[in-house]
């Protein structure tokens, strides 16, 4: 039986995988696209199709998130629009770079290697922070935080002190060189165009640490940026015929539902309790891509199967842990309420 031009089994697989990454994204607020693109690589899709699907997925997810938070938090539209300029150039160059590598027959290999280090690095960072400190470290993604309370990091203060004209005044009452804004936009665009990710995990820290944008404004402006970079990136890849709707549409159908389950679970389960598994899952993703590349290089068929089992198994385990913990929390809550009916 064929649906959307592919077998029903594949459609169900993509809806199921979408459900998993949607649950993870909804719960942890990240990890949608940087698990999707490597998973598609592991499944044997070419780097252009994997990145194209990643970008289209990022675009749709950001649109849904924007509709959910209609006011977009606190967006600095001037900063967002200026960054789009740098992002668009970065996207185009990232895509051309991947196209060029693919023409040389190196696209899948280079993308695979980059993902091995990216997933491994972020995974180890998250795991180490989860082990070290319950507070995690990194940036608090709380959009409700008071803008005035946010401290400007030292690096950002140094960057803000460079007066390379033209200077731009931004929301929050500070000025910064236009070139720095374009540079941050360009760098995240380059990553998006090359890796098929939204780039939020780079842009958020860059906005905060490099430009000194207060966290609540960084969160809103990041989302605003992802809608545009995802949309422009999808369009650029679609122009090359690299957007496969048979992959994107079922993935999205699953992930939009998963995102609701994941975000509903955040009020029931402490993220810190599960974060270590999330970190280990990313490390698993890294090992999976490495195994697939090795299998391909040396013609070891079993490594390909192993890599698929690792990446899907890790996602199933962590998404399962989120859902099971949420169900247990709800049941415990009900038992406690019955035990103390006076409240």
């Amino acid at each position, binding site marked *: 039986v064929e649906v*959307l*031009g592919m077998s029903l089994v594949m459609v169900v697989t993509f809806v199921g995988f979408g459900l998993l990454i949607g649950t993870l994204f909804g719960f942890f607020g990240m990890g949608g696209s940087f698990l999707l693109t490597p998973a598609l690589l592991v499944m044997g899709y070419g780097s252009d199709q994997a990145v194209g699907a990643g970008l*289209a997925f990022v*675009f*749709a*997810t950001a*649109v*849904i998130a924007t*509709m*959910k938070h209609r006011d977009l938090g606190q967006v600095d539209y001037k900063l967002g629009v200026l960054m789009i300029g740098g992002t668009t150039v970065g996207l185009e160059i990232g895509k051309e770079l991947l196209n060029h590598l693919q023409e040389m027959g190196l696209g899948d290999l280079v993308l695979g290697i980059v993902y091995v280090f990216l997933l491994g690095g972020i995974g180890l960072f998250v795991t180490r922070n989860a082990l070290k400190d319950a507070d995690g470290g990194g940036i608090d993604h709380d959009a409700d935080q008071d803008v005035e309370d946010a401290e400007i990091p030292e690096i950002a203060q140094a960057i803000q002190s460079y007066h390379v004209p033209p200077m731009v005044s931004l929301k929050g009452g500070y000025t910064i060189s236009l070139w720095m804004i374009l540079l941050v936009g360009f760098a995240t665009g380059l990553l998006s165009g090359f890796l098929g990710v939204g780039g939020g995990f780079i842009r958020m820290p860059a906005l905060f640490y490099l430009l000194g944008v207060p966290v609540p404004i960084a969160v809103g402006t990041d989302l605003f940026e992802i809608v545009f970079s995802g*949309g422009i990136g*999808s*369009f650029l890849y*679609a*122009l090359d015929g690299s*957007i496969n*709707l*048979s992959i*994107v*549409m079922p993935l*999205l*159908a699953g992930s*939009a*539902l998963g995102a*609701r389950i994941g975000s*509903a679970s955040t009020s029931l389960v402490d993220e810190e309790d599960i974060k270590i598994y999330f970190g280990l899952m990313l490390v698993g993703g890294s090992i999976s891509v490495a195994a697939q590349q090795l299998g391909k290089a040396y013609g070891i068929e079993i490594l390909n199967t192993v890599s698929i089992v690792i990446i899907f198994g890790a996602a199933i385990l962590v998404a399962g842990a989120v859902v099971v913990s949420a*169900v247990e929390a*709800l*049941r415990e*809550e*009900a038992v406690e309420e019955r035990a103390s009916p006076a409240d």
Partner: protein
Amino acid sequence: MFGIENLTGPTKALAQVGLVLLEAVILYVLYGGLSSLFSEWITDAIRGE
């Protein structure tokens, strides 16, 4: 698929991105409606009520 096979170039690319956007909006409305209809029922079922 969806009658866009015959389109070419930027028109086809725009149509594809437009379809992804349309699906996102439909899913937002559809799952939003389902959530408000069934979330309480599902929560009660899990809580054993």
